């Protein structure tokens, strides 16, 4: 293989990568660029290549106006708080359950796992109302005392979402690929199952933790129907419900784009951080290698 050949192949590879990147980027560029334009210009530009170019009357006014229209910081905080809490609890409980299903022999585990996986089939939208009836009858003890019903709170947005079939399934699939002799060796050394879970298995879980965390993060951050049903005060409202603040009879498109750009930043940041962790964890553990 000559140098020239490999350089040509390298250029080709990059061209391919860039070309695909453009396909994935264009609506998002449209979103960000539009957030800088006044409404009328935004709409007129949307038919041509100008939609992607920050040309014409460019300013960050829309961001200021959007902040006046809705308490954006509050919404982002609510979403991040709900999302982060759910993700952490979910990773712990779901990985523990998956560990039990894969490594422990116990009566009923096949049935329980099958039931759990079957719940994957139930789209949330179809059980939202019954779920509302359930959470409305649950007790809660908070700082302001005992009450029945979880409506209008953080916990109603968090607790029902902690355990889910996909996350458990992700861990189960991952654990199945782990070398069994690792566990055997730890058992011989007299480690308890919980110690094996914490000390032996979890440290190997970098990639699957990152994957599960990202997927869960996306689901939670983009929650829409459920918070709509259960939050009544702005104190608890998340970002996607906040999006509705912008769809008035005459929608302020520039502000919509500004709001969308703003609420996308935290997710992107989270992914950027995790995908680094995700790559480096693989390099360091060298699973099965």
């Amino acid at each position, binding site marked *: 293989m000559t140098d020239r050949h490999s350089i040509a192949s390298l250029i080709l590879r990059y061209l391919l990568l860039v070309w695909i990147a453009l396909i994935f980027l264009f609506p998002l560029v449209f979103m960000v660029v539009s957030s800088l334009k006044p409404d009328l210009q935004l*709409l007129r530009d949307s038919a041509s290549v100008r939609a992607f170019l920050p040309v014409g009357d460019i300013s960050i006014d829309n961001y200021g106006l959007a902040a006046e*229209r809705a308490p954006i910081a509050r919404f982002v905080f609510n979403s991040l708080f709900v999302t982060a809490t759910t993700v952490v609890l979910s990773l712990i409980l779901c990985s523990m359950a998956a560990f039990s299903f894969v490594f422990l022999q116990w009566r009923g585990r096949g049935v329980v796992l099958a039931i759990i996986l079957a719940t994957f089939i139930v789209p949330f939208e179809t059980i939202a109302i019954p779920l509302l009836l359930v959470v409305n009858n649950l007790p809660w003890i908070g*700082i302001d005392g005992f009450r029945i019903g979880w409506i209008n709170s953080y916990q109603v947005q968090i607790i029902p979402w902690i355990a889910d079939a996909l996350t458990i399934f992700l861990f189960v699939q991952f654990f199945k690929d782990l070398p069994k002799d690792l566990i055997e060796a730890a058992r011989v050394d007299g480690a308890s199952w919980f110690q094996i879970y914490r000390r032996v298995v979890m440290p190997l879980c970098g990639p699957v933790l990152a994957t599960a965390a990202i997927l869960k993060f996306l689901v939670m951050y983009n929650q829409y129907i459920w918070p709509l*049903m259960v939050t009544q005060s*702005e104190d608890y409202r998340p970002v996607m419900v906040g999006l509705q603040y912008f769809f008035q009879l*005459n929608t302020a498109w520039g502000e919509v784009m500004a709001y969308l750009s703003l609420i996308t930043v935290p997710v992107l940041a989270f992914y950027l951080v995790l995908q680094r962790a995700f790559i480096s964890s693989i390099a360091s553990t060298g699973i099965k290698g």
Partner: protein
Amino acid sequence: MTLNGALKTTLSVLALSAVGVAAQAQTPLSLWYHGAGNPVERDVLIGLIEDFNTSQSDWVIELAEFPQASYNESVVAAGLAGNLPDIVDVDGPIMPNWAWAGYLQPLDLPDGTTDGFLPGTLGYWNGELYTVGLWDAAVAVLARRSVLDEHGIRIPTLDEPWDLEEFDAALTTLQASGDFDYPFDVGMAWTGEWYPYAFGPFLQSFGGDILDASVPTAEGVLNGDAGLDFGDWWQSLFDRDMVPGVSQDAADRETGFVDGNYAMQWNGNWAVLSALETFGDDLLILPAPDFGNGPTIGAASWQFGVSSTTEHADGANQFIEFMLQDEYLAAFSDALGLIPATASAAAISEYYSEGGPLEVFYGLSEAQARLRAVTPGYLVAALEFEKAMSDIASGADVADTLDAATDAINDDLERNNGYQ
């Protein structure tokens, strides 16, 4: 959770100590409003609430705002959870549904409070007043004097509106001119309540209706001869490319008329201000055409009512009575371009006073406005009508589509024992 709890406790302690002892005697009343995300609207409402809170010492109003697009869902969910506020606002045609479901109780206002209010602002069901609005909305044909003059089209008046033939001829002329993408725009982009609100009156003007609330049934009303005539005409608008179809996006809806792509537009008073800015005196606000059974536009906008679960109906009624002062009717009108509910409020408003730019809408509302079918079944009927309008516009068989909608509406009536 605990963080928020702590925060809340701290805040309420601070608030209490700041307001002092007098405030503690005031009983809080919760008010839910659909206007989240509209700072102008919020300012007017908050001003009104502050006036009320300081005007008496028994009650203090606590406002919670919801985004309009999902307001109904939020209230229904809260109702399911037994969590309704003391005072709710309700979209006019939905009111009977909530009253029937037991979400609302009749108002208890002093006699004469609502005298002189536009009929569309009063929410009666089963002979009782459940809700009352501070404003109404109206729909009109927006056009430009210069365009109509250029093409020799007569400018219609309230006394002498266009009839079907003249209206159709005008559309044909405008289309033939080649100056426009479409001669007319009915706003297919605005899915949802806009369809029955804006297009139902066409059907009424043809002599049909979505359903006859007095029986109640849709059979022979929606799919009767008048309904079929209306359906054929409706489909022909799209077949002949007279109006943009179902895939119109909201952006085109907003800019199409102002940019000159649509010669005329069927639009509400709330959207007129931008056209007025662009065209000034050239803008015409024209009455609905008469399709044979009188020109008609939809009535009833957002209104206020008292929830059935409140323990303080007296306070809630007192607040609603307080809201209905001309001063506040005019304030909402000035802020949002809405039609004030009374003539006296219109007289002191910016847009609807004599010579005001939108004055004509008050006349339209008075002369042409007709309530949408007043029945709890309206909710499902409106959705079926929306689907039928969209399907017919896309080329579905008119008779079959109206039959299907009629069956679905009657099924719903039957399943609910006629909403009696």
